[in-house]
């Protein structure tokens, strides 16, 4: 690690009654890194993500954000400085696109004019149309447009860390691909540190610098895609097998794509 990690989990566990959702996980996310957490449903990946901004409180272990123990930070203040993109958007249906995007700066008490300027900037950044979308209600947008608003909202208060909870899961493949690429680009340009949850190993490999694999609350493996291929865990190899088989099959079915 070149510098101190932006997010650091040390022996973190979370129990819901008898259920151990996260079991003794230690994991660091470096500054500027894009980490994908891959796992099936019930693997504890969402719980792990929510522990970082205290939407869920850990039962044991320590979580540090930018070098500070999260227990020492007021949870509301913590959430305002960490961007969060919800599954299928989580947009407020009674607020316009602009009001949804500007919500965190508004909570932080920024002046209206500054918020309005920031909202315009973000609408451009996530490649929406100011004139067409700014004053719409979320229900008038497509799924992809809604998720772009969700990303813009997460970025509105200028966070250094962004947490994403299966952000592209419910989108059609084309939209999903375009949005993933766009976000990857934003992540690099803005120098963000990103933790993204996905159940799709292909998406994880294509977008993330490093991939962490969870199963039954335990962290099975973590590393670059290349490092993961050397893992001795059968489940990890099985997960990696899927994109491999897809590539092979695509190469036979679509030979011209290999030539392009």
């Amino acid at each position, binding site marked *: 690690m070149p510098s101190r990690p932006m997010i650091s989990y040390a022996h973190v566990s979370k129990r819901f009654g008898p259920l151990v959702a996260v079991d003794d996980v230690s994991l660091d996310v470096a500054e500027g890194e894009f980490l994908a957490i891959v796992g099936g449903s019930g693997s504890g990946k969402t719980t792990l993500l929510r522990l970082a*901004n205290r*939407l869920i409180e850990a039962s044991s272990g320590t979580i540090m954000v930018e070098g500070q123990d999260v227990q020492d930070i007021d949870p*509301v*203040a913590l*959430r*305002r400085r960490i961007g*969060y993109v*919800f*599954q*299928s958007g*989580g*947009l*407020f*249906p*009674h607020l316009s696109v602009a009001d949804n995007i500007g*919500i*965190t700066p508004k*909570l*932080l008490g920024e002046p209206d004019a500054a918020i309005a300027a920031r909202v315009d900037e973000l609408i451009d950044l996530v490649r929406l149309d100011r004139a067409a979308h700014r004053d719409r*209600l979320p229900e008038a947008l497509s799924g992809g447009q809604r998720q772009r608003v969700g990303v813009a*909202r997460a970025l509105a*208060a200028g966070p250094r860390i962004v947490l994403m909870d299966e952000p592209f899961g419910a989108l059609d493949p084309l939209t999903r691909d375009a949005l993933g690429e766009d976000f990857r680009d934003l992540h690099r340009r803005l120098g963000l540190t990103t933790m993204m949850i996905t159940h799709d190993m292909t998406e994880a490999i294509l977008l993330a610098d490093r991939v962490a694999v969870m199963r039954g609350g335990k962290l099975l493996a973590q590393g670059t895609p290349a490092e993961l291929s050397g893992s001795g865990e059968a489940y990890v190899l099985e997960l990696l097998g899927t994109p491999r088989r897809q590539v092979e099959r695509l190469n036979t079915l679509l030979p011209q794509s290999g030539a392009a």
Partner: protein
Amino acid sequence: MSLLSDPRWGEALSHLPDYLGNHVRVSLAALALGLAVSLPLAILTRNRPAPRGILLALASIVQTVPGLALLALFYPLLLAAASVTLTWFGVAFSAFGFLPAMLALALYSMLPVLRNGITGLNGIDPALIEAAKGVGMTPRQSLVMVELPLALPVMMAGIRTAAVWVIGTATLSTPIGQTSLGNYIFAGLQTQNWVFVLFGCFASALLALAVDQLLGLIENGLRRRSRLRAGLGAAGIAALVAATLVPSMGRSSQGYVVGAKTFAEQYVLSALLRDRLQAAGLSATARSGLGSSVIFGALKAGDIDLYVDYSGTLWANQLHRTDIKPRAEIVTELKAALATDNITLLGELGFENAYALVMPRKRAEALGIRTIADLAAHAPTMSIAGDYEFFSRPEWAALQKSYGLQFRAQRQMQPDFMYAAVASGEVDVIAGYTSDGLIAKYDLVALDDPRHAIPPYDAVLLLAPKRAGDERLQAALKPLLGRIDVTTMREANLRAAGNDANSSPDAVAKWLWEKVGGR
């Protein structure tokens, strides 16, 4: 005469500003109080299933209490509370009219507001509440910025239901002294003035419909997030409230208040008293349809200034006496006893309106019944009907005790319907009133009471403590004392029981005044 050209419509219309204004005022206050209590409760209990369940159960129980009973319960409750505050803090408040009506109606409005409030708040997608937390809202900000706006349409629907219920139920607040559109209905029912009944029904239904539609517009606007619709609805409500309240504001100086109980004779007498005071240059209004137990308390507390009661009623209900004395002695004793409460018994009007057991003349002759003692032998095979209070009055207990009366069945009836019921044989005997003109009309006979179980019932004028030394008032009333004999009163009552333009209490009161020597 056609129904539409009936002059009673005009008379009804002349009361509209007063009745409607008071109706809107008490409904609005009740709704505001109900909302101020239930909305915070709905918010506080939204995430607490146990208190929420208890609260909803309590509100549901309140809802099962009939509106009239709930209103009636608040009068003695507040009367007791007022006497407590008087002894402890030296301040009393009026347990009459507005306050009990408002409190009972507010309680009545709580269930729909609570239920819809809780449903609305609990129905919000949990992912949105999570999102509110995730973007950095405090629980309070989440409530104000996300949960309440999203629950608002459902809450509004509850408020709408509550408003319609309150407006409808407010018509029942007349007997506890709150003027409302119910005054038309109660007065109309007692004096068989169906024009009044219809007018009252239409007026309150129209009011409820208008409020429902306007609140519906607001609800619709909130649902569709249309500021225009919500704004129009709100402006409509504001205009409606202003239009109904402003005309009644100007008339709020009421001067003397004449009380009346719930039967036709009382309506006529209160109109007569009001006219006499107005003729003497005093400003006066009639407050009619008051319950028999409410009215004495209201006089004692000064909520009304004067009314006509009956010596036997006061003897039994206020002095709790069971012995019977001659007419004059009872009035003298009453006068002295009431004076200790600072209530003035100004004098007798001249006629007596006693309870009497009444049955068809022909049937009585056929069975050889002349007195209540004769009746006792036949009673076990007969049914008896009385007004709403008769069977719980001491006179009934005394009758049963003196004559060993035991009827096969007893029924309660609207006083004006009793006479027709006994004439048609639907019941065998009724507890009627001796001053009622219907006794003659239906060829009925009042049975003698040889054992004097029923005390005399001289009509007497009572004045509130605060009017004890009011000489202008007493001078205006003196000409009526001893002037109304029972024949005249019977005729007046018979007129009031008719269903035509000359049968309104106001018209009968004018006739009565001319008859007893006025001009």
